């Protein structure tokens, strides 16, 4: 293991020119991640960022870590191989709503199911950016794009619900435009033992500008979002005077003093799902922060433990014995 060095944010930048559209939220995420990774206490060579295809998936090129810009939708699968082969690495999957939830939906849910100790950042701009603006599986019904000139008739996925349904052990949401919040969530994700999934509301300034404005814009953010902080009451508002509380299987507004305390570590994911169901079109604040954080067996650990157990029991395998196994006989 190489010695621990102190990294600065600048150390995390690669020499490649960043090529997103001016004004794209991806810049903010990049900057936040550079800061977060520098501060993890992990040497740079132990970090590996794997992506698929999309604007967001260009991410690895701009980081000075190891990186694998894969093919469309397959980042989670590639990352699975990387992590199994070298569990010592800090593995990050960077994906988009198209890459991760459209073509890559299967690998996404299976990564979450297996619960490898990796981190998945889904840049959700509710659009296919790289291919110039078609509706995605997270686009709001009715969105007019070149592929839906009369408005899309599809129902969107809720990425948080999908991750919860797939058994996510760490499920969170943040806003690209809120670097402080993102940094905290990314750091929590990195610390979580298991697959950490973070949905990032990311504005595509060219093809879907302003989709998240109603909740994510600086001016309204305090009133229109609520940060789910483990062990803290569900309080929001600029004056932190408002709250949410559970009433049966529904959630309602209340005074801050009456707010329910948030427990993302509860046995059941039902409360997380309930909060995930709060949409941007209603008048409840949209939850960001940590929906779910529970301990669950980690795939590559269980696998390597099993391998170790077999080795311990049977000793290191000998190729000679393997070849000479079964009934053998001698000629001549």
């Amino acid at each position: 293991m190489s010695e621990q060095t102190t990294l600065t944010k600048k150390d995390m930048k690669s020499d490649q020119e960043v090529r997103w559209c001016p004004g794209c939220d991806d810049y903010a995420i990049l900057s936040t991640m550079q800061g977060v990774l520098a501060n993890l206490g992990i040497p740079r060579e132990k970090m590996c960022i794997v992506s698929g295809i999309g604007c967001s998936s260009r991410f690895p090129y701009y980081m000075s870590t190891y990186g694998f810009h894969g093919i469309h939708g397959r980042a989670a699968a590639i990352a699975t191989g990387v992590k199994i082969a070298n569990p010592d690495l800090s593995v990050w999957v960077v994906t988009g709503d198209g890459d991760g939830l459209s073509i890559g939906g299967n690998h996404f849910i299976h990564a979450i199911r297996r619960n490898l100790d990796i981190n998945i950042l889904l840049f959700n701009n509710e659009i296919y950016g790289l291919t110039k603006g078609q509706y995605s599986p997270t686009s709001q019904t009715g969105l007019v794009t070149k592929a839906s000139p009369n408005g899309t008739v599809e129902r969107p996925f809720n990425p948080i619900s999908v991750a919860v349904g797939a058994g996510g052990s760490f499920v969170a949401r943040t806003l690209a435009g809120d670097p402080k919040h993102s940094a905290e969530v990314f750091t929590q994700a990195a610390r979580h033992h298991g697959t950490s999934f973070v949905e990032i509301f990311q504005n595509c300034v060219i093809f879907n500008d302003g989709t998240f404005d109603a909740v994510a814009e600086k001016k309204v953010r305090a009133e229109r979002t609520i940060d789910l902080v483990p062990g803290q009451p569900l309080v929001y508002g600029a004056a932190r005077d408002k709250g949410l509380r559970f009433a049966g299987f529904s959630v309602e507004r209340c005074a801050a003093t009456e707010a329910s305390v948030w427990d993302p570590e509860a046995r059941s994911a039902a409360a997380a799902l309930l909060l995930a169901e709060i949409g941007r079109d209603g008048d409840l604040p949209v939850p960001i922060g940590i929906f779910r954080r529970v301990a669950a067996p980690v795939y590559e650990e269980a696998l390597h433990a099993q391998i170790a157990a077999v080795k311990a029991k049977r000793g290191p395998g000998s190729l000679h014995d393997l070849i000479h196994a079964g009934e053998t006989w001698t000629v001549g």
Partner: protein
Amino acid sequence: MTESKKTALDVPLEQQETVVIRFAGDSGDGMQLTGSQFTTTSAVVGNDLATFPDFPAEIRAPAGTRPGVSGFQIHFSAIDIHTPGDAPDVLVALNPAALIVNLGDLKPGGMIIANSGNFTARNLKKAHLDSNPLEDGSLDGYRVISIDINARVAEALKDSPLSAAEIQRCKNFYVLGLMYWLYSRPVEPTARWLQTTFAKRPELAVANEKAMRSGYNAGNIHELFQGRYEVPACAEMPPGRYRNIMGNQALGLGLVAGAQCAGRKLFLGAYPITPATDILQQLAAYKHHDVITFMAEDEIAAICAALGASFAGHLGATSTSGPGVALKTEALGLAVMTELPLVLVNVQRAGPSTGMPTKVEQADLLQAIFGRNGEAPIPVLACASPTDAFDCAIEACRIAVERMTPVILLSDNYIANGSEPWRLPDLDELPDFRVPFRTDPKDFQPYLRKEKLARPWAIPGTPGLEHRIGGLEKQDRTGNVSYDPANHEAMVRLRARKVMSLAEEFPLPTVYGSESGDLLVVSWGGTSGAVRSAAEILRRDGFPVANATFRHLWPFPQGLDDLLSRYQTILVPEMNTGQLYRVLRSEFPARNFLSYTKVQGKPFHTSQIVERVQSILEHRP
């Protein structure tokens, strides 16, 4: 019936050079086990041999029905042989369905050993038979030995503590004993095997052994057989330690060995698919051999994970069959572009589409060579026999790590499930092709070339070598994304050269027969055994025919054109509509190729090749 006291001496003993037996019964009758015991015993007495099972199609059909029939063919011989045999000399049929499904393959005048006890009205109906073939004369022309094995086993084991149903499950050992008698083989190896296998249930060992010995003794009854046979040991087998091995097994072992030769852990990403599943299952049991198996959610994830593992420093491999290769196509392109080692094994089955998943075909060759978008050259090897799969797998691993490239290794259902004796390799004979990881940050560039045009293998975790790879075109040396036209052309040609220059190191195929002449028969994969056998027969009979087996299908070895040029005509038998033929014609347009194809989900018979060659030679100008 009591055991006959007549001894083997009472019937004539006939020497035979080579014999083919097919054991057939219901899925539940244990024919595979019977076959493999007969195989082991024949091996131990020194025969050369080759076997091939005939499993029922995917789903277990109801007992007694035609789709429920399970078969096992063994060819054992005093001479060097290369196939499980064409038509069986003997068909052992444990029920009417087994008889009727296999009868067509039996040699004219061949022997049928039928379990008459199972030819009941009910079973005849299940087999869609209107009358009993043992009685209706439809077997005239065959030597039919009809025995009520059910009754004999019941009788033999009447003192056993086993239940009646359990006793009936010993039938296959009765048959085995009978066949041991008929072909003069010892019962001891199987007796020993029973004792170890059923160490924890000795009553089963005892019952099965007793059934076997009764069968053996029953053979002595000359009412049943007019003679006994003996197939002497094969003198041509090179000295050494042997075991019998199936193609899939050998291939799996080859991957393990190949990874060890490369000094890397083996990472197999796979999704089950007939007939490749065995490889995954076999390797899953090798956890203590530095083998990691990852059963993925689909074929795409399987290859992508393998590629990720290669990036991280393991030797990534992925095993599948045709439909799975189709799904892996896009990722293969990524492997070409990222220049990472990867071995893709395609155990071919009959297509197109789902086709006939349990049947053999070799119709994925063009897909292997040409089936990707863009210019994505990949070396293609094919194994020619069950044991050859071991060597091929090692070679595939070697190419993958030496050149940092995906490699496609083709096998097929026939090779995968066929077995033959394997002279166990001396581990010291195995090549050492360890390729060190790059560790020195000085002047490191991820796409700078080393020997054989490989780029360095620089794995995550190495300080100072942090770099990014991906599917976009790479700038020469730096590996940065590049849209530069001249760079693209240079990289396309470089990737091609890296693969095509393998031609220089690939050896020419061994030619059997004369070095030039009228006719060369070339084979690859599952046609190789039949071609080799046919050519030997033909040469023995004085026909001037040479034969050669191709392992290296892309690129072709340097000098192949010259080799081919020495023959007037080159016959290319294939289990497809002429895929190698097409490629050869394109690569060597000056040569005269003749395609001979069979697309029936079944291998060529040696006799078919023999006849085809004879007819070609007869029609020579």
